[in-house]
């Protein structure tokens, strides 16, 4: 009997538990279905309206002559819709797309779990032949479809991958920073102009709202399309760039490591900005294939690195004009001050060499013939502080402010800097002697050198270099010119004319080191540089401008580990200036290399 009582007690506990369970579930059911039916009903309705995002076309890019250099072309992306797709067709499909069947199966399974009616992308950017095979076999390939997306297309020979830049899928970090502007899978500018002018180029997304029925079939536009939001094309960029010169400069650098920067000395417009080795942007698409990117990233020649703006190399003798300017402007010397160069200079127990015995040399001759001994002695006379001050005035040690994110400030040593790295009082004047000829700690980029030489050519105005001249607003058709930023240097016309004289003689007078930069019919002025560096042969530099009387182009050429500036960099600079000024080559007609887009080490990595 006791046992029975016990059982009854426990049975009742179970009954109570059962009633409690029923009451809780009933209450929750009533809460969801009766109290909040309108809330959930609305959410479910929203679910049955499909939102289709219409990506806008990115803005085009034109060169200074209105030539289209970056635009968009359709690119076909193959998709499969899991609800309609049959796995038996995978071998056939993988054959057509030359895609791993495992990958197709994996994507299919993933998509099926998520939403069987949403097409999943399985391959981007298929070629036209593949597309037509797909079209012909539509009947056999249920659920296989393609989407038209766009990818960047580069119609001219100008590759300029570092300048134009590429786009990529928006990162998680960017998404968290700009949650209102981007969604997962969106494309965003990653480098170069694509990144710097992302907001200008990207345009505005559009949305189509489609009603779907219970089976997921599209019935037609929701609200007769009145709720749709039109997409808006991105705005166009008009560059200062000369696409022909850019392509030509790139072809001159083929097979070399180095950079060429040409700017318009009258407004700072970037005429050419080439860096080699480089890469072929047309292989990138809107989303960079991962293996291509990592191949480029791991390449020891660093093709992704923009040598025109990011390097920090010793400029060698091209830097001598900084000291010359400082000494002349501060009245340390005048043109009658001269030294007798015996081919070497002894300071303490150290001997600093020169390439030649130059004999009696004044400042103009020192620039013309690149006399090291003259500048060794001048540095000691001039002093460190002045040198640093004028280096800064001429744009070194800080970014130029070009409209690209990728830029290095370089390094302009000062007394404080030496105190910091060597310790106060632990460095001597001997440390300065190398700086006089652009060796030692000083580091510059070709862009900085081009801006520097432009200020001599235009009589002392430092223009902030700019790639983009104006922006064309697609919606209104209005174009906005971007402001020219200029800084008048604290250097007298007299000082500048002495420097220019030296540069003139460097190219045009017997004994000058830059004669290889000469062009017929136009006077060129310039300065060579041969910079020693710990990584192999000397870097070859040339900076210059033309025409001498009314300069239209200022240029800097850097060829890494190539040897003498006068022998390697100077003729390349001459060719570029000739090409720009005459739009053709007069003197080097036969020997000139032809701009060639196919010349790339990386082809069709997919």
């Amino acid at each position, binding site marked *: 009997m006791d046992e029975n009582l016990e059982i009854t007690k426990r049975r009742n506990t179970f009954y109570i538990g059962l009633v409690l369970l029923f009451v809780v579930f009933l209450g929750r059911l009533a809460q969801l279905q009766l109290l909040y*039916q309108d809330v959930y009903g609305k959410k479910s309705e929203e679910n049955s309206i499909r939102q289709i995002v219409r990506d806008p076309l990115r803005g085009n890019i034109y060169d200074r002559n209105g030539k289209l250099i970056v635009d968009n072309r359709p690119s076909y992306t193959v998709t499969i819709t899991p609800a309609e797709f049959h796995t038996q067709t995978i071998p056939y499909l993988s054959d057509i797309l030359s895609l791993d069947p495992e990958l197709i199966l994996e994507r299919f399974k993933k998509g099926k779990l998520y939403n069987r009616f949403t097409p999943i992308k399985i391959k981007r950017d298929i070629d036209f032949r593949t597309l037509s095979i797909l079209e012909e076999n539509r009947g056999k390939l249920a659920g296989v479809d393609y989407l038209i997306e766009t990818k960047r297309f580069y119609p001219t020979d100008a590759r300029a991958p570092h300048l134009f830049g590429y786009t990529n899928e928006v990162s998680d970090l960017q998404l968290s920073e700009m949650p209102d502007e981007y969604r997962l899978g969106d494309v965003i500018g990653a480098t170069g102009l694509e990144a710097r002018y992302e907001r200008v180029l990207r345009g505005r997304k559009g949305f189509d709202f489609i009603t779907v029925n219970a089976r997921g079939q599209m019935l037609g536009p929701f609200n007769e399309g009145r709720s749709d939001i039109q997409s808006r094309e991105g705005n166009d960029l008009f560059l200062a760039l000369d696409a022909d010169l850019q392509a030509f400069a790139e072809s001159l650098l083929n097979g070399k490591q180095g950079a060429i920067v040409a700017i318009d000395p009258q407004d700072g417009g970037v005429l050419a900005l080439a860096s080699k080795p480089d890469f072929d942007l047309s292989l990138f698409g809107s989303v960079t294939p991962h293996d291509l990117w990592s191949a480029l990233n791991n390449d020891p020649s660093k093709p992704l690195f923009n040598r025109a703006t990011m390097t920090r190399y010793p400029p060698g003798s091209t830097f001598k004009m900084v000291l010359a300017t400082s000494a002349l402007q501060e009245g340390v010397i005048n043109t009658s001050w001269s030294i007798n160069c015996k081919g070497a200079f002894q300071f303490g127990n150290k001997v600093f060499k020169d390439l030649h015995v130059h004999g009696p040399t004044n400042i103009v001759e020192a620039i013309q013939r690149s006399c090291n001994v003259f500048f060794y002695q001048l540095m000691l006379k001039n002093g460190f502080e002045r040198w640093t001050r004028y280096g800064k005035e001429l744009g070194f040690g800080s970014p130029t402010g070009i409209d690209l994110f990728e830029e290095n400030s370089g390094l302009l040593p000062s007394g404080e800097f030496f105190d910091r790295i060597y310790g106060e009082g632990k460095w001597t004047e001997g440390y300065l002697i190398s700086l006089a000829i652009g060796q030692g700690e000083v580091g510059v980029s070709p862009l900085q050198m081009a801006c520097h030489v432009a200020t001599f050519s235009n009589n002392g105005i430092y223009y902030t270099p700019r790639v983009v001249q104006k922006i064309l607003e697609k919606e209104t058709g209005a174009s906005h010119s971007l402001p020219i930023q200029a800084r008048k240097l604290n250097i007298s016309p007299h000082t500048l004319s002495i420097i220019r004289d030296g540069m003139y003689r460097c190219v045009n007078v017997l004994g000058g080191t830059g004669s290889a930069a000469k062009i017929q019919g136009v006077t060129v002025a310039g300065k060579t540089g041969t910079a020693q560096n710990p990584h192999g042969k000397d870097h070859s530099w040339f900076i210059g401008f033309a025409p001498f009387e009314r300069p239209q182009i200022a240029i800097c050429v850097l060829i890494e580990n190539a040897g003498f500036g006068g022998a390697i960099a100077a003729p390349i600079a001459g060719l570029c200036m000739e090409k720009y000024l005459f739009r053709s080559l007069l003197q080097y007609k036969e020997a000139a290399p032809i701009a060639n887009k196919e010349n790339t080490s990386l082809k069709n990595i997919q």
Partner: protein
Amino acid sequence: MMDNWIKENFDITTLLVVLSLILMGFTAVYSATYDAGASTFFHRQLFFAGIGVIIMVLTVIIPFRTLQLFSYPLYGISLIILVMVLFTGKVIAGSKSWFGIQGLGLQPSEIVKVTTILALASYLSNPRINLSKLKYLLTSFIFVLIPVSLILLQPDVGTALIYLGTLLLVLYWAGISKFALLTLLAPAASAVAALFGITAFAIVIAATLIILFLLRENRLLSAIVFSITVVVGVSVQFIFSRFEPYQQKRILTFLNPDADPLGAGYNVIQSKIAIGSGGFFGKGYLQGSQTQLNFIPAQWTDFIFCVPGEEFGFVGALIILLFFVILLYRGIKIASIVKNRYASLVAIGIVSSYAVHITINIGMSMGIMPVIGVPLPFLSYGGSNLITNITMAGLLLNMYVNRKEY
């Protein structure tokens, strides 16, 4: 006359409720898969139900004494199968718990549910067993812990929880003392509370302390129970960190589903939308946009409850709830009226297994339980599960037929 005989020997209510639930399952599975794969799923479910009903007839006919005789051997065989699946099974949804036989999946952990209940009932029905002795309590735990640990190796936390829940209910029925029950429940409660935060944890610890004080048990034992409760709660975070990421995510998402609306919280949110939008009468059969547009991934298995919830509304969901309540009520009743202790324990084991499944599954669909992959008896698609549940129903009917036997 005949009528009376049937009434006397068959629990007609339970039989009709089970058959109705199976039919509702058919309609729900058909709707949930009403597109490309509908006929395949539907026909398979019909096929499984057919097999289940055949097995049910056998389980009703078989004398329960014979069944008791075979309880341990069946348990042993099913464990061997469970070990085999670890080595040869197929991986489905991250869990290696399936045998592939001619394209049909067989999930041994479902079948082991029945054999474990039988073996446990057989053990506990021995009059020698005194649950106030630790030895016997531990042995009864081991019956469950062996399959549970094998299942956790697969790994399938949902099924493991079902076993433990069932065990606790069966032990209660078998006459475990309040102190022992507290010993089992307090650490579990503290583990769950620890996941919710320090306040919940503190409340559980305080409650344990008060109850221990009121029970006035041996002080040393009380102290041990209390320490275990604290240690379990503290180490839960550590164990939690060793979980599979998807399990971690499910637990955390349960605590705050809205934090991850596109990831792990997605299922619950869509499930609540489906049920909520059904309203009073529902959207009509095959008209539920949530169901038909597949907003709920793999809805035909774990989230099947949304289908009637959305398409038949409050009325449909309530009918299903009532059927389950009647089934459980009849099960408890049978367990309490059968004269044989083994039969009683089998019956309560089956009721408990149903109850835990139903509570977790429907609770999960309505967003008041964590998302644990547990099927809804008779409604969810899945052969092994359906056959197992029908078999269990057959056992309930068997116990009813033989209710007067000692």
